[in-house]
């Protein structure tokens, strides 16, 4: 650890920070002052320059112009190591913990002065003493792989404190957390700020978190600082207006029609979970035509396994899936015949062949169809025509139809997969975390498409870790915990506090 650092939180200020990549200006004359001990939010759409700004501050990029003051003094940050030396630390959106190491091992090895030979007895004593001073705890002896997302995020923050960092940049720290986990983690972070231990700069696009936890906010749009102020003086719509500029946000789609007959049902389904140690047990789950059934839950409580059961990736030990009253084993032929479509989470990895082209990926459902029969020789022309139509109507931004789909941004991969899955008859649609990591305009558009599919008569099963999303879209809400459905309610009668208690298994 670095003893020459001042105790307590430090302030950071950027002055006329500008960053150009060739002819493209990612950051244009941005000056932000973050007072010591404050909780500062950095708002902006994807591509607004938030990441560029913090990467300049952390020394990953070298700003084309402008400078930075740390604790009132001019600071040169040629690389991340120099930033760490100044007491600056960053918690990344994706975890940087090593999954197979225990929490204690992760902490000790992250120290630049980790001893050559580790005396675990002494290190454990030091770690226990450190943890005793912290407002929240994480089990130290389990491999990080076994921790829940919220615990991992807490451990990331603890790691920064353990390393003696006094200014923390949090890059969308709650994107993998449930609302209750997010509130808990941010509450602790806020308490550390109030105690004068640390200063925090949090990148986010969730207004709720800004209002609830931040003192001040700065808003970036297209590389420029377009607004700043005290959170207390700003409303959500003020912030949205600054963030979006003149761009219109799609309104939540209206809900029309009523639920029909049961199209998808699971009964007495049993399967092993990913670790092979626990069971997934769904006694009864039914989805009707023309309704959205939302499954809320903290990640790692069996939602991923349930998705895999429904897509046929995970064998059932007992029980059955029926679609429209007949048994269903998720073969390609069955899915086609009964019009069952899927939008798994992380579609680039779970629903695409990343290095194949956009046109080929869009053609996966239909490339071997010729009218009602199948074909042996493919028709490149028809595949391209279909892809071109769908790319246009779903507004997929791609350089060309022949570009590998992995080259697209997350929102555009999601649109391309949604285009494929929503084309033709859709009677059952199974979705998992459709808006993970997308920006506000992409989110509202994708939710509108899901609602449109429901209104057109599809039965939709929506698994999401984002409770707001569940509440916005669902007709009925189920809560999954420990591999079981533990609560059911209608969307109208549900309240987040009750759902949160069931999600946490305390009901």
């Amino acid at each position: 650890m670095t003893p020459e650092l001042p105790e307590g939180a430090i302030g950071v200020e950027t002055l006329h920070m500008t960053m150009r990549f060739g002819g493209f200006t990612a950051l244009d004359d941005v000056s932000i002052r973050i007072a010591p001990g404050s909780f500062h939010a950095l708002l902006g759409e994807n591509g607004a320059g938030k990441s560029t700004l913090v990467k300049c501050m952390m020394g990953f990029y070298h700003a084309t112009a402008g400078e930075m003051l740390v604790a009132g003094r001019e600071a040169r940050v040629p690389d991340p190591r120099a930033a760490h030396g100044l007491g600056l630390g960053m918690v990344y959106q994706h975890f940087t913990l090593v999954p197979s190491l225990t929490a204690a091992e992760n902490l000790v090895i992250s120290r630049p002065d980790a001893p050559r030979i580790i005396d675990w007895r002494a290190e454990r004593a030091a770690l226990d003493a450190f943890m005793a001073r912290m407002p929240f705890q994480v089990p130290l002896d389990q491999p990080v792989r076994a921790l829940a997302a919220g615990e991992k995020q807490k451990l990331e923050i603890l790691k920064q404190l353990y390393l003696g960092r006094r200014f923390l940049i949090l890059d969308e720290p709650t994107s993998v957390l449930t609302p209750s986990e997010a509130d808990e983690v941010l509450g602790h972070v806020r308490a550390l700020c109030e105690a004068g231990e640390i200063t925090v700069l949090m990148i986010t696009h969730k207004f709720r978190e800004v209002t609830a936890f931040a003192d001040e906010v700065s808003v970036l749009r297209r590389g420029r600082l377009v607004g700043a102020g005290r959170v207390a003086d700003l409303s959500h719509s003020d912030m949205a207006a600054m963030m979006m500029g003149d761009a219109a946000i799609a309104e939540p789609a209206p809900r029309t029609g009523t639920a029909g007959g049961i199209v998808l049902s699971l009964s007495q389904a049993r399967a092993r979970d990913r670790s092979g140690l626990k069971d997934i047990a769904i006694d009864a789950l039914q989805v009707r035509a023309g309704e959205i059934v939302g499954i809320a839950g903290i990640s790692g409580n069996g939602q991923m396994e349930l998705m895999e059961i429904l897509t046929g990736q995970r064998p059932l030990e007992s029980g059955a899936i029926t679609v429209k009253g007949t048994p269903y084993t998720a073969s390609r032929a069955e899915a086609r015949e009964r019009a069952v479509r899927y939008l798994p989470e992380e579609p680039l990895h779970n629903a695409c062949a990343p290095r194949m082209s956009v046109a080929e990926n869009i053609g996966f459902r239909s490339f071997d169809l010729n009218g009602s029969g199948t074909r042996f020789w493919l028709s490149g022309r028809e595949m391209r025509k279909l892809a071109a139509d769908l790319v246009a109507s779903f507004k997929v931004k791609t350089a060309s139809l022949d570009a590998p789909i992995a080259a697209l941004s997350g929102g555009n991969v999601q649109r391309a997969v949604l285009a494929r899955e929503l084309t033709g008859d859709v009677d059952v649609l199974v979705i998992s975390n459709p808006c993970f990591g997308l920006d506000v305009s992409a989110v509202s558009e994708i939710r509108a498409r899901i609602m449109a599919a429901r209104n057109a008569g599809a039965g939709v099963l929506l698994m999401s870790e984002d409770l707001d999303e569940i509440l916005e879209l669902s007709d009925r809400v189920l809560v999954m915990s420990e591999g079981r459905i533990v609560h059911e309610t209608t969307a109208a009668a549900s309240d987040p506090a009750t759902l949160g208690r069931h999600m946490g298994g305390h009901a």
Partner: protein
Amino acid sequence: MSDLGIWAVPLAILGGAIRVSTPFLFVSLGEVLTERSGRINLGLEGTLVFGAMSGYAIAFLTGSPWAGVLAAAAAGAFFGLIHGLICSLPRVNDIAIGIAMMILGMGLAFYFGKPFVQPVAPDLPAISFGWWSDLPQVRAALQVNVLFLIGGVAAFALWWMFRATRVGLIIRVVGDSTDAARAMGLRPALIRTLATAAGGAFAGVGGAYLSLYYPGSWNEGLSSGQGLMAVALVIFARWNPIACFGAALLFGGAGALGPALQSVGVSEGYYLYYAAPYVLTLGVLIATSSPRQAMTGAPGELSITK
């Protein structure tokens, strides 16, 4: 010769296990070290054969078997270094390079080893742990080579290194998550290259054991795929060095089954018994695989488990 009856078989298997397991042990420890850093080196079979040749040649030329062992380790480290450096280039697949290195290693060993097929090099020393017994079979079985003991100590040392030293934790970090390693300011390619070189040195020593102790001469048919089976053995041992020690003994014992049965006069299906280690390899891989469950303990960056 006193008659031990059926007890001669387990005794011969025990002795065989100690004798045959040493190359398995060294190659698998080398492979554990390499794989824990996130690379897989299938070329260790070639390294083993080249180590056997160079160890034998140097032992013959200097008259010292230990100089031979050192030469084999150096040759193995060199092969590992080449593998590691090539795999550090972008878009290079470690498995393909491993197969190429395996064939290269064997080819070079046969080419340079031709003049050493006839000469006789000094053997590595062994320690007699059977002095207390009058039975020649017991004495023969407990004739333990020094390299076996060194290998056993090395297994425990590696286990301790992965748990309680900075270098061990760094290897595990690099092997499990390249991103986390980069975020820590480590250089994954460098660490993997060094781990592959060190792993190659282990495999070279395993080769020296083959040519300098058991069977104890250099010829082209010296290795019977121990280098390849050690890769399977590492998976069976779940990347744990101490488990490698046990697995090497098990595989060694299976390899000794044929000669052991022959010694009591069972000669039917002779070649079938010689296939025992290979059958065991297949059996072990099938028994420990599961279609439903991710392999626990596998380093996250390994190209075969990704």
